[in-house]
C-alpha cells in the first residue's frame, strides 16, 4: 500500500456506514484501489479538508461529505481503498457491504490511468454486486507524462458503464464527473455493465444456483448471480454477511446446500476445486482486463516508467539505500533545527514582553498577587513556552515530512528495511507506522492497521512509542542545542545537534528491532509471515497543498491539543509548586521522594516528576521542569533556548543529565492519547499496560547503564 496522500483514505471504524443514506438527495459511494487519488476527488467534490493522507480518519462522519450540483444534493461516501472485494479483510468487508447493502444511488470506481489493467479487476468485481457504476479514470496527468493514452469512449463501450476521465488535482476536470453522477442518479443514463463471462461450466452452475435461489428468496436481481458465485466459492464469511444484511438464511437451506455440494463434486471432477476456484475467477477477470487494455491503451513510450525505475535503483541500492534514508531524515532534522532557532527566539521575547504587560496590568487593577501569579506565571507562561518551543519546529518539520510522504518515499523505506524487520520476525510495514509515529504516536498506532497480520500488528503497536513524536522532538532539539552543541557555534553547531537528535532516533529504531525480536520469542511467538507491498509511482508533490495541509491539519491540530493540556497542567503545577506542607511545596515533596531513584538514572527528582506530570501530553515536560526550577514565584524572562540552558545548568544539569533526558524522552511511557488509542485498537488492557511498561523499563535500564558508565569514567 502506498502512503501518499490518498492511500489510507478514511478507515471506517464500523459498519454503521450502512445506514448512511441521504434523505434529501442522492448517495454516492467512492470506491477504488489504494492510492488512486480517491480521497483527493472526495475532498475536491465536497470541499472538505479532512486528514486524509496518512492519518486515518477517526470517525465515520469524516468519510462522508456533501456536494451540490444543479438542483440536487449528493452525499458522498469515501470507502477504504481496496485491491479487491473477494477477501475478508476488514476494509474489504466494509467496502463490499456498503456498496452492496448500503444501496448507494451510484458507485464511482476510481481507477489509476497508469495502471488500468490491474484496476479493472476491482471494477469487474464491483460489477457483480451493483449495476450503477461510474468508472472514473483518474491521474490522467500522470498517464500523459508517461505517454499513455486511453480511449475513454471505447473503454465505456467495452465496460457498458459511463467512463469519465479526471485529473483530481485540477478541480475543473471534475465537472464532467459531477455531471455523470447527476445523470446516473437521475436515471438519465442507465449503466448496463458487461459482466465477466467465466468458464462456460461455471456460468452453467451459476445459472443452476440462480434458479434455485429464486425459488426461495425474493431479492434484487443483481444479487442472485453474486450469491451463487459466493456459494460456488463457499465463502462462509461473505455468505454470513449476506445473510445478516438481507435477513435471509441460505446456509441452512437443505435444498440449496444439496445442490451446492453436488456442483462442488461436478467441478472438482474437472479440476476446479475450492483451492483454485478463486484463481479461475481471477484469471477470467484478468484475461478480459488485458484484452480491454490492449484495445483502449496506447503506450507511446514502452519504457514509460524508466525514470521511476532509475530513481528506485538509487534509493534502494545496496550501498546507498540505507545511508540515503538516514541522510534524508538528517536533512529534515537539520533544516528544522536551523530554521526553528530564530522564530523560537522571537516568540520567546514576544511572549516575555506580553507577560510583563500582563503583570503590570494585574498590578494596575489591584489583582491579588496569588491570582495573578497563578494565571500569569502558571497558565500563561506554560502556554507560551509550549508555543515558543513547539510551533517553529513543527511548522517546519511537518511540511518537509509530508513532502517525503507525498513523493511516495515511505514505502521505499519499508522496502529497504524489511530485511531487518524480517530477522526480528515482524513486518517492514512497521517502518511506515514508525514514520507516522514521528508525527504523532497515536496516529502511528492507528496506522498499524496497514499490517494485516495480528501478531505483527501488535508488535508494531507496542513499539510505536519508541520513535519520538513531534511532542518530543522539539524537546530533544532544545536539549541537543543547549548541551551538546553549545560550545560549537553556527553551522557546525547545528550539524552536531542534528547528529545528536539522529542518534537518539536511530537508538529508538534499534530498540524497536530489539524489543520486537524479544517479543517474537516470548509473548508474541511466531515466525515472520508474508509481506506484499506496492511501491507506488513517484508523484510530484503539490507544494501549496502540502504547506496548507501540514500547517492547518497537523501543526495547529497537534499544537491545539498540547495547549488544551498545557493550560490546566500549568495551573496544577503552579499550585503544586506553591502550595505545601510545613513550608515545603508539594512539588518538592514529590521530587524529593523520587530523587534517590532518579539519581540512579542520572536524572533528578524534578525531571522524573515532570515526565510523570507530562503523561497527558509530552509537550509539557520541559515547561514543567523549568516551572519546577523557577517554581517559587521567581520571575525570569526567557529570551531564547540559551536562557533555558542557563537555568538547567544552574540546577545541576550536566552532559550526563542531558544525554539521559534525551534517552528517557525517547524511551518512556506514551502519552494518554496514545494509550487510549492502543486500548481502542487492541481492545485489551493487557496490551495497553504492556505498551506503557515496555518502553519505560527500557528507558530506565538504559539511563542507569549510561550513568554507570559515566560514573566509572569520571572516577577513573
Amino acid at each position, binding site marked *: 500500500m502506498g502512503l501518499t496522500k490518498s492511500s489510507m483514505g478514511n478507515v471506517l471504524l464500523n459498519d454503521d456506514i450502512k445506514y448512511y443514506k441521504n434523505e434529501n438527495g442522492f448517495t454516492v459511494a467512492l470506491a477504488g484501489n489504494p492510492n488512486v487519488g480517491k480521497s483527493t476527488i472526495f475532498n475536491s467534490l465536497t470541499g472538505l479538508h479532512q486528514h486524509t493522507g496518512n492519518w486515518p480518519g477517526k470517525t465515520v462522519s469524516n468519510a462522508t461529505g456533501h456536494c451540490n450540483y444543479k438542483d440536487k444534493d449528493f452525499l458522498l461516501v469515501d470507502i477504504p481503498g481496496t485491491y479487491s472485494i473477494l477477501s475478508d479483510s476488514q476494509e474489504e468487508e466494509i467496502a463490499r457491504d456498503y456498496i452492496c447493502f448500503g444501496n448507494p444511488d451510484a458507485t464511482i470506481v476510481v481507477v489509476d490511468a497508469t495502471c488500468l489493467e490491474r484496476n479493472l479487476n476491482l471494477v469487474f468485481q464491483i460489477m457483480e454486486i451493483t449495476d450503477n457504476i461510474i468508472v472514473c479514470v483518474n491521474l490522467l496527468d500522470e498517464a500523459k507524462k508517461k505517454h499513455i493514452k486511453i480511449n475513454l469512449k471505447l473503454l465505456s463501450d467495452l465496460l457498458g458503464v459511463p467512463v469519465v476521465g479526471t485529473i483530481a488535482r485540477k478541480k475543473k476536470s471534475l465537472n464532467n464527473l459531477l455531471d455523470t453522477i447527476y445523470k446516473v442518479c437521475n436515471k438519465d443514463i442507465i449503466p448496463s455493465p458487461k459482466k465477466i463471462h467465466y468458464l462456460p461450466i461455471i456460468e452453467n452452475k451459476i445459472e443452476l444456483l440462480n434458479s434455485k435461489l429464486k425459488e426461495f428468496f425474493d431479492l434484487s436481481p443483481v444479487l442472485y448471480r453474486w450469491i451463487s458465485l459466493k456459494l460456488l466459492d463457499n465463502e462462509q464469511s461473505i455468505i454470513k454477511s449476506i445473510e445478516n444484511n438481507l435477513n435471509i438464511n441460505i446456509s441452512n437451506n437443505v435444498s440449496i446446500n444439496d445442490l451446492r455440494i453436488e456442483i462442488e463434486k461436478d467441478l472438482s471432477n474437472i479440476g476446479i476445486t475450492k483451492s483454485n476456484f478463486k484463481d479461475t475467477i481471477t484469471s477470467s477477470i484478468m484475461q478480459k482486463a488485458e484484452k480491454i487494455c490492449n484495445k483502449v491503451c496506447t503506450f507511446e513510450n514502452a519504457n514509460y516508467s524508466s525514470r521511476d525505475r532509475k530513481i528506485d535503483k538509487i534509493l534502494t541500492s545496496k550501498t546507498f539505500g540505507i545511508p540515503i534514508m538516514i541522510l534524508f531524515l538528517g536533512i529534515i532534522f537539520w533544516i528544522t533545527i536551523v530554521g526553528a532557532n530564530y522564530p523560537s527566539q522571537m516568540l520567546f521575547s514576544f511572549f516575555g514582553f506580553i507577560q510583563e504587560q500582563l503583570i503590570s496590568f494585574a498590578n494596575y487593577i489591584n489583582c491579588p498577587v496569588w491570582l495573578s501569579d497563578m494565571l500569569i506565571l502558571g497558565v500563561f507562561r506554560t502556554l507560551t513556552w509550549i508555543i515558543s518551543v513547539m510551533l517553529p519546529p513543527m511548522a517546519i518539520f511537518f511540511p518537509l515530512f509530508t513532502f517525503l510522504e507525498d513523493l511516495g518515499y515511505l514505502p521505499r523505506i519499508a*522496502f529497504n528495511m524489511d530485511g531487518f524487520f524480517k530477522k526480528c520476525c515482524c513486518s517492514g510495514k512497521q517502518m511506515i507506522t514508525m514514520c507516522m509515529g514521528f508525527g504523532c504516536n497515536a496516529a502511528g498506532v492507528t496506522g498499524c492497521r496497514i499490517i494485516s497480520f495480528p501478531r505483527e500488528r501488535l508488535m508494531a503497536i507496542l513499539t510505536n512509542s519508541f520513535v519520538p513524536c513531534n511532542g518530543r522532538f522539539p524537546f530533544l532539539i532544545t536539549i541537543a542545542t543547549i548541551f551538546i552543541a553549545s560550545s560549537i557555534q553556527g553551522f557546525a553547531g547545528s550539524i552536531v545537534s542534528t547528529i545528536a537528535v539522529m542518534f537518539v532516533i536511530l537508538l529508538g529504531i534499534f530498540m524497536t528491532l530489539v524489543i520486537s525480536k524479544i517479543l517474537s520469542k516470548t509473548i508474541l511467538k511466531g515466525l515472520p509471515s508474508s509481506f506484499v507491498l506496492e511501491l507506488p509511482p513517484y508523484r510530484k508533490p503539490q507544494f501549496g497543498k502540502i504547506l496548507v495541509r501540514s500547517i492547518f491539519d497537523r501543526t495547529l491540530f497537534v499544537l491545539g491539543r498540547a495547549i488544551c493540556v498545557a493550560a490546566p497542567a500549568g495551573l496544577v503545577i503552579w499550585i503544586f509548586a506553591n502550595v505545601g506542607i510545613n513550608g515545603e511545596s508539594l512539588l518538592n515533596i514529590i521530587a524529593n521522594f523520587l530523587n534517590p531513584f532518579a539519581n540512579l538514572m542520572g536524572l533528578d527528582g524534578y525531571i522524573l516528576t515532570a515526565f510523570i506530570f507530562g503523561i497527558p501530553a509530552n509537550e509539557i515536560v520541559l515547561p514543567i521542569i523549568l516551572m519546577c526550577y523557577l517554581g517559587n514565584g521567581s520571575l525570569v524572562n526567557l529570551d531564547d533556548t540559551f536562557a533555558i540552558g542557563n537555568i538547567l545548568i544552574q540546577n545541576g544539569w550536566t552532559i550526563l543529565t542531558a544525554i539521559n533526558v534525551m534517552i528517557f524522552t525517547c524511551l518512556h511511557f506514551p502519552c494518554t492519547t496514545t494509550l487510549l488509542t492502543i486500548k481502542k485498537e487492541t481492545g485489551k488492557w493487557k496490551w495497553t499496560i504492556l505498551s506503557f511498561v515496555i518502553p519505560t523499563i527500557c528507558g530506565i535500564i538504559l539511563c542507569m547503564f549510561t550513568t554507570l558508565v559515566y560514573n566509572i569514567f569520571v572516577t577513573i
Partner: protein
Amino acid sequence: MNTKIITLNKLPVNKTGFIYNIKCSENVKRRLLDLGIVKNTCIKAILKSPSGGLKAFEIRGSLIAIRDEDSSLIQIYTK
C-alpha cells in the same frame, strides 16, 4: 522454444518470466490474486532490498515487493 520452470525468487533482476503456479498459503495467494497475479502473468524482477530477503517485481504496470519466503513458492516459466 526453450522453457524453463524456476521459482520466482531465483529470477534475476531485470529478467522477465511468466507465472506458472502459485503454491503460497491461501491467505497470501488471495493477496497476490488481488494484485492481478494469475497464471501466465508477465512478471519482471526490478529491485533487490538492501537489507536482503525481498525483491520488487513489476506486475501489470505496478511495482510489488514480495519476500523471498513467498516468492520461493511461486513457480514461473521463462522463455
